[in-house]
């Protein structure tokens, strides 16, 4: 970004320069400052809401939370033990205060099952989930945009109808296969029938080889979804006036599409990728189950379905929420770099 002094974000009014004081063209420094202040404030508010939500997970359990958590077969003593451990015998404001002061230090309490800090258990799983999610997001954006743009350009102005139709049909079918179904199918084909890739995570296998199927099943549906969106958007952008201007400058095809179209396409694609990314994180939680992948999905499902391990549930939900907040912020910053107009407006 330029380091020139910024009078204001908005352009100085139209018309002639004032005599005496030369008019300086405005830079984006001011817009970035406002943007970052607003987004950091928003992040803090969202964090506070996240802490509140994770706190309420226990309090909102219908009936007596302590009885529900301890289980139907628990003795009265066990129920009381759970009650004191979770602080449920205290008044609500005290509970919230205890909870918040713990969370600030990263302390969500000890796991019932593993007898160690819940946060440690969650943090062990985080790298596994992040690995496959980030790899899938990158694949999805790069391949999805490239494919959508190529098809959009190839079918512009109703050229190659057969390509348009087959693209719609194929991507439509693939993108409507649930990721966990696709994952199961991959296991059957690549691990059971062809035996070229490991069926599930295990310390015995190379982690790189074991990650191929989870990443592929997470990204392929998304690639098709992104490609469909980008293909439609390409058709829209190709009809814009500024593309006609670029053709008026007789720019070569590659410059036309890569330099003048792609940045506008990225704005849309990245805005949508925020939505896709959160959806992907959700899919990852389930897809991990197919591959026994030792990520957050397994941790949270085990904690809910089997152990009723609420400290772990709270920590896991907090961390997953935090990941989506941070990823959304990163995407917005990239968006701002590509297209500074998005700095001023609200995200949509």
């Amino acid at each position, binding site marked *: 970004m330029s380091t020139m002094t910024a009078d204001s974000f908005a352009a100085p009014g139209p018309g002639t320069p004032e005599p005496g004081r030369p008019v300086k063209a405005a830079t984006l420094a001011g817009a970035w400052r406002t943007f970052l202040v607003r987004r950091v404030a928003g992040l803090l508010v969202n964090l506070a809401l996240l802490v509140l939500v994770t706190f309420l997970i226990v309090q909102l359990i219908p009936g007596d939370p302590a009885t529900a958590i301890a289980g139907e077969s628990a003795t009265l003593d066990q129920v009381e033990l759970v009650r004191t451990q979770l602080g449920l015998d205290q008044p609500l404001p005290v509970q919230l205060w205890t909870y918040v002061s713990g969370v600030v230090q990263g302390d969500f309490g000890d796991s019932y099952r593993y007898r160690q800090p819940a946060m440690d258990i969650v943090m062990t799983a985080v790298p596994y989930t992040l690995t496959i999610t980030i790899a899938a997001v990158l694949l999805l954006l790069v391949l999805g945009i490239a494919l959508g743009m190529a098809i959009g350009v190839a079918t512009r102005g109703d050229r190659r109808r057969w390509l348009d139709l087959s693209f719609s049909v194929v991507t439509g079918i693939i993108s409507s296969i649930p990721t*966990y179904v696709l994952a199961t199918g991959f296991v059957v084909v690549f691990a059971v029938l062809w035996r070229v890739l490991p069926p599930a995570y295990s310390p015995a296998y190379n982690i790189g080889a074991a990650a191929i199927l989870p990443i592929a099943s997470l990204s392929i549906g998304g690639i098709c979804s992104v490609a469909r969106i980008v293909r439609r958007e390409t058709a829209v952008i190709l009809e814009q006036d500024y593309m006609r201007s670029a053709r008026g400058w007789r720019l*070569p095809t590659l410059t036309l599409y890569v*330099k003048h179209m792609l940045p506008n396409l990225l704005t849309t694609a990245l805005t949508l990728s925020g939505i896709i990314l959160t959806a992907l994180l959700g899919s990852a939680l389930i897809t991990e189950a197919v591959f026994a992948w030792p990520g957050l999905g397994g941790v949270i499902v085990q904690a809910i379905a089997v152990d009723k391990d609420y400290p772990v549930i709270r920590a896991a939900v907090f961390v997953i929420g935090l990941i989506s907040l941070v990823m959304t912020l990163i995407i917005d910053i990239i968006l701002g770099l590509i297209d500074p107009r998005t700095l001023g407006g609200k995200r949509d």
Partner: protein
Amino acid sequence: MTESNPAAAVRVAEAPADRARRFAWNPGLVIGLGMLAVVAVAAVIAPLVFGTQATGVGTDPGQASSAAHPLGTDTLGRDMLARTLVATQSTVLMALFATVLSSVVGIAFGIFVWLAPRRLRELGLRLIEFAVSYPTMLVAIIVAAILGQGVVQVVVAVAVANIAGFARLTANLAAKISASEYVTTARLMGVPVHRLALRHVLPNMAEPILILIAGAFSGALVEISGLSFIGLGAQTPAFDWGTLLNDGLSRIAVNPIVIAGPAVALTFTSLAALMVGDGLAAAANPRSNSTRARLVRAEGEPAVVTIEGDDTVLIADGITVKHGSTGRPLVSDVSFTIRRGEVLGIVGESGSGKSLTASVVARLLGEGLEASARRLELGGTDLLGRVSGRTLASKIGLVYQDPGTALNPALVLGTQLSDVLTIRLGFSRRGALGLLARAFEAVKLSDPEGRLRQHPHQLSGGMKQRAMIASAMSTKPDLLIADEPTTALDVTVQREVLSLLKRMNEQSGTAVLFISHDLGVVRALCDRVLVMKDGRIVERIDDVATLSEDTVEHPYTKQLLAATPTVAVKVPAPTPGEARS
């Protein structure tokens, strides 16, 4: 994943609400509805027919595919085909309930937020944004963690997770529609708020919301089955496609056929909903069909006579443009010439073919049009043959109607305006930027170097148009084509731009083809004027100075003159005299 559906819903929501649209059935929609009908029939009939077969313990456990059991049997010997078909009912009902629940609550909440007082509305919108930014699946898992496992719990969980999406779309649409003219009018006429919501706002939301519902159903189906798949949903003895898939997963190494049933069923139903959603979106926003543009040479006697050694820059003879698929004529046999340093105006109403004529000369004909000409030469170059991009770029400069849309919003001015110089005319990047800075200075843009680093949205309309003119002139073209360059600007800025064009024309001797619907503007700037109507030239005015209703012949020109009175006489606005100052 079903991201494309909400996106489609948003796209429809962005389409102008007042444009009359006819519902267009399309194959995708029909096929999708047909597939959904098949699913519905299976959901109703299968439990009655295959009920006992699906739940009763069979005699051949763990069978692979066979004639009796095409999809094999599970560990208790139950036929997987029967179980898959029977599970249709529970799966579809769960998804349906979740969709209905989330859409009703979400739409109600969205409307409530829209109707609420300002403070409450802001708070509500914030809450919706917060909820939307979380993975649906995470919200569903949180709710499942609170409520426990089971069919009802998982339906509630997925419904809760999807509420925010509906609430956001509803609030956005309500805000957009309530700002529209017909709602404002109704409000001014004293229509009460609840009637406004029911009669005006809701019906206009129907289309995008229907599209979102189709997407949400597909989403709910996948999410509920996903939750069942990881053991948070339906518990034994209840079963749905998700639990069947989960059962199959544990036996995948020995009997992979058992996952085929639930996998295909899930994909089939999800695809059906997706097709219905996309079909609805396509029906609401049909794409125009067009063919690619063509420009060909026509045979025939020339209508333009040129003299050798003349300083004619452009010779256009017999330009004809037809609509590609219908063959409807848009421009018929238009011929003219432009001499060096001359400004030729083409004036006419919208649809008269004046812009099309210009686009033929510029070799930028739009998609779906077919053009021909007997002769089209610019500075000795035959434009009907193969012309290199480099030649066109150096010979023709272009200025468009709306500077707000003609500049690329994502690129700074220096980057987009210098491309033609560096790529087509062989300038170095620094040389190109220096030339542009001088050109910006020539059009009186303040701080030229700073402007080159700005994005278009940081400049006013007049500044953008001046930048466009500077860029068009930077290639030192033989011909500058200005297509309604002042129409999108307000009156004072119009005058600036006109005098700038005149000054550029006089300083550089560049010929100008000036297109406008405004005879007042044209007579102020041009040396000669062509009047076009219905694709034909109806009047050629060679002497603009003495132009009056008596010197023209065609009734349409007389009408035009009558409609633009006294511009040149009383208002000095864009008179040539001032423009030269």
